[in-house]
């Protein structure tokens, strides 16, 4: 990918992810407040970055209304106390929102339009349930542009099982149990907490509280324990609550900068952007999206999958990870894949997850200086995949 300037990932933080719903951590916490907290923590952790040097704040949200509306990148920047001279915008590519925020500002940096940008995402799925306010064009169905199941993510996951008959429910469940185990271990080793910013959680009836850890992980999950769960998307199907990511609330953000500017400001770049790609697939099997996007990103980078030493792939559904691994000939339990676990345990607040993948890849890079390249990849509703290839600077 031709670049006038190298683009680097400097630092990323996120709020703990909560379970959506009236009992969840953030039941009475605003989405924009989550973003504000992330931005302030990024600035606090990187005192070398003068606030006025932030040239853009790109924040993704899938549902851009209410507390996720009002051009959330700009409004959160103002609420966070960044100088009014710092602009911001809102961006949406559903689950790949934050990833797209990063690639978009990266494009701007590479072009020379920005030196430093903050990119991130938020989804408060409790306040904004999936599909809130959508109005699908009737032509989608009348002209059979997409299958009727395309807008129900669980159904697309069942469709993906159909496409890969070798991926059984047992494999998906085993993958899910392993994800929970990896997250529990990563927590025990203190690998997750360092990038979580504690978030105040006030409930009118209970007073102030503080979220310091993710709410969604279920350590101790066993195969036996999840085997009998319902398959809500298809009778006698394969997709269950246990082998899918949950419905979650959370926000992420990161500092992306031109490499020379990062060094000038004394910031420590952790990874260099090598290439990125997005690709479209049939919406009714959206989970297959990461395959063509990764192939395209590898091609742009002049790399092969064998050059990739670490994979952070979003676990929207176990089947979608397994389809990716099967396609590239990688074992289900390959240690290069999601070494700290993934969304099945952490949760998946849609537009925020892309930057969580980058945070975890950057930390895994730091522990594996021998690894040169890694990827972050995820599937996207309406049939897309996104992939970013990174070079380890640790």
């Amino acid at each position, binding site marked *: 990918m031709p670049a006038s300037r190298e683009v680097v990932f400097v630092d990323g933080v996120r709020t703990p992810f909560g379970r959506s719903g009236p009992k969840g951590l953030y039941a009475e916490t605003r989405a924009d407040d989550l973003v*504000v*907290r992330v931005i*302030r923590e990024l600035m606090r952790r990187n005192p070398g970055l003068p606030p006025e040097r932030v040239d853009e704040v790109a924040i993704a949200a899938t549902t851009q209304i209410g507390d996720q509306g009002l051009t959330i990148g700009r409004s959160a920047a103002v*609420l*966070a*106390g960044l100088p009014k001279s710092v602009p911001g915008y809102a961006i949406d590519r559903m689950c790949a929102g934050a990833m797209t925020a990063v690639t978009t500002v990266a494009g701007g940096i590479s072009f020379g339009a920005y030196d430093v940008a903050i990119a991130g995402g938020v989804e408060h799925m409790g306040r904004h349930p999936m599909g809130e306010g959508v109005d699908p064009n009737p032509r989608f169905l009348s002209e059979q542009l997409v299958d009727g199941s395309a807008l129900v993510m669980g159904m697309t996951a069942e469709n993906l099982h159909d496409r890969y008959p070798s991926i059984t429910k047992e494999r998906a469940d085993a993958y899910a149990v392993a994800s929970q185990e990896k997250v529990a271990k990563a927590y025990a080793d203190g690998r997750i907490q360092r990038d979580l*910013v*504690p*978030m*105040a959680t*006030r409930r*009118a*009836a*209970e*007073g*102030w*509280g*503080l979220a*310091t*850890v993710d709410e969604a992980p279920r350590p101790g999950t066993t195969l036996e324990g999840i085997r009998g769960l319902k398959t809500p998307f298809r009778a006698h199907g394969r997709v269950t609550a246990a082998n899918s990511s949950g419905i979650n609330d959370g926000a992420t953000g990161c500092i992306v900068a031109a490499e020379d500017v990062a060094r000038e400001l004394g910031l420590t770049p952790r990874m260099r952007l090598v290439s990125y790609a997005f690709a479209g697939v049939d919406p009714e099997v959206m989970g297959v999206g990461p395959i063509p996007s990764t192939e395209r990103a590898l091609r742009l980078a002049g790399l092969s999958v064998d050059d990739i030493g670490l994979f952070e792939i979003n676990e929207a559904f176990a089947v979608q990870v397994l389809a990716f691994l099967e396609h590239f000939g990688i074992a289900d339990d390959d240690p290069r894949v999601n070494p700290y676990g993934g969304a099945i345990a952490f949760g998946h607040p849609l537009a925020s997850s892309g930057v969580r993948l980058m945070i975890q890849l950057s930390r895994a890079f730091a522990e594996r200086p021998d690894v040169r390249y890694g990827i972050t990849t995820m599937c996207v509703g309406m049939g897309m995949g996104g992939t970013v290839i990174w070079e380890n600077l640790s």
Partner: protein
Amino acid sequence: MSTLDTSRALLEGKNADEVVTKALVRDVELPYGAGTMALITLDNGLDHTKPNTFGPHGLLALNDALDAIAARSDLAAVGVVGKPFIFAVGADLKGAAAVSSREEALAIGRLGHHVFRRLGELDVPSFAFVNGAAMGGGLEIALHCTYRTVSSGVPAIALPECFLGLVPGWGGTQLLPRLIGPERALKLVIENPLSQNRMIKGRDAFALGIADAVFEPADFIEESLRWAAQVLRGEVSVERADHAAADWAPVIDRARTLVDLKLRGASPAPYRALDLMALARTASREEGFAAEDEALADLLMSDELRAGLYAFDLVQRRAKRPAGAPDRSLARPVTKVGVVGAGLMASQLALLFARRLEVPVVMTDLDQARLDKGVGYVHAEVGRLLGKSRISADQANRLKGLVTGSLTKDAFADADFVIEAVFEDLGVKQKVFAEVEEVVSETCVLATNTSSLSVTDMAAGLRHPERVVGFHFFNPVAVLPLLEIVRGAATDDPTLSTAFAVGKTLKKSCVLVKDAPAFVVNRLLTRFMGEVTAAADEGTPLEVADHALDSLGLPMTPFALLQLVGPAVALHVAETMHAAFPDRFGVSGNLAELVAAGKPGLYGPDFQIDPEVRALFEGGSSPSTADEVRLRALRALAQEIRLMLDEGVVSAAQDIDLCMILGAGWPFHTGGITPYLDRTGISEEVTGSRFLEPGVASVPA
């Protein structure tokens, strides 16, 4: 019985309608593995317009929460925080006004101490996170904690007790001077309350040392908890100066002199606060808190406090819902204002209307030079506001653009509200209104800023007398909050409603008054000053006459007020009042001579009586004592107020008091004036009855 049981028994049945501030407790896992904090959120369940307060039930609720916390052994710390925008604003004043015995008053003081002090006596450190307004008992809760953080967004931190007639007696007088030293503590306990109840902001509280750390409001709670974790882990240490070693006496004596200058002993509260603070340097907690309990009990049962609570209620409630104002929906929009005249008063009015209404304001005068001066004054004042960063450059441009001048009244054609501030002469004003009526719409309100002329007479002869209303400001217009709105005989409801709506937008406290000579404040001040001047005319030494009323603690002596108003204006009003009520309002020959001599008042530039003025007043042959002068002036006030109420000048004695508090700056501890006249027996002696029922602004019988 324990303090708690006694208090519970005495207070539990009381104050049934207390809005109880709950103490919600949640466990918080602190960052960096600093352990678990039991975080108490103070929340009365209402929004920020109804702040957290503490009555007996709230105190007992907090006590229950602390019982549960004290029983645990797994905690690293305890925290206290408020609801959004509000920490806590102190004792429930409604409850305080309902206390009926000293025993009960003592129980309130003791219960507050019993509960609050536990925050400083737990096995683990306590932290107050002052996220919003903290006043009185609210601030004292924070002071009892081991550590405090404050949000830089907090607009109001104060110990307003002395303003009302109490002392910060739930630990404030003991803890604060030891924490930040007596000099700084006096600022909060004495100076600010006695300076129109000034408040400080979050950053000031940090600078004074009241809080150990300050954080921005955006993530104040999270950063406070992070800081608490760092303190608990020893990563942050809090340095505190030891103030107990110094000699506090000179500082406290200086403050006592200041209080004397302002109050002359009229209200006991600040003196008690000073005594308690003096004690704080050496007293044990037991001694100090017990002394606070006694002071609270005495003051809660004092008429000065009850008058203070009454006055506070007038200013907070009655001033916002003026008695007798017509339905708000009748008000007509005001999109342009005309000001007749370009003198100082007119210019002040133009500035005020432009700033608050943000509509075009056009001033007229017959003389271009005067007009230029008037508009120039407004522009210069706008420039001053800009210089002090009170407004932005854009706002300054806007305000300057809004205020223009015109030599002819055609410029009023599309105005909705025209106010005149021309020479105080009925004929002149009638002529002005007649000219204005030629150009304005039929519904344009015509307001007069007259201080003593009849609004009804001014409207006579107009085609639409129903649109004329009195709009009596007090000088300086930008500072004094009172606006007497005068209903003339013909004034209709839409006009009156528009006047009230405009007054409210101007951020004035409006009181509806009948069209009677000099309305309320000037009538009473003139009557009062007339008696003092008469005593001087009769041979009472000037100093004796002028200081005869010191024991009321008025903001200034009668002759100082005369100096401020100007002898010529005072004489003019006295003559007007004499014409209206020759039996009760005299005109002092000496005052007339003073005006003729061109003196600015009785005092020279050195604040001593001008010898020439003294000579001028010589010759009286029946001097009075100070006591006689005081009684004479107060009796005159009682008589005049009764007459005003009988005439229906205002709807109730409460409005008289509100006017005197807001228009003359008369103090809270006199409740304006009628509570003072009632409690000294003067009302009954002069008029046969009290103005207010016992208990309204006094300790119930």
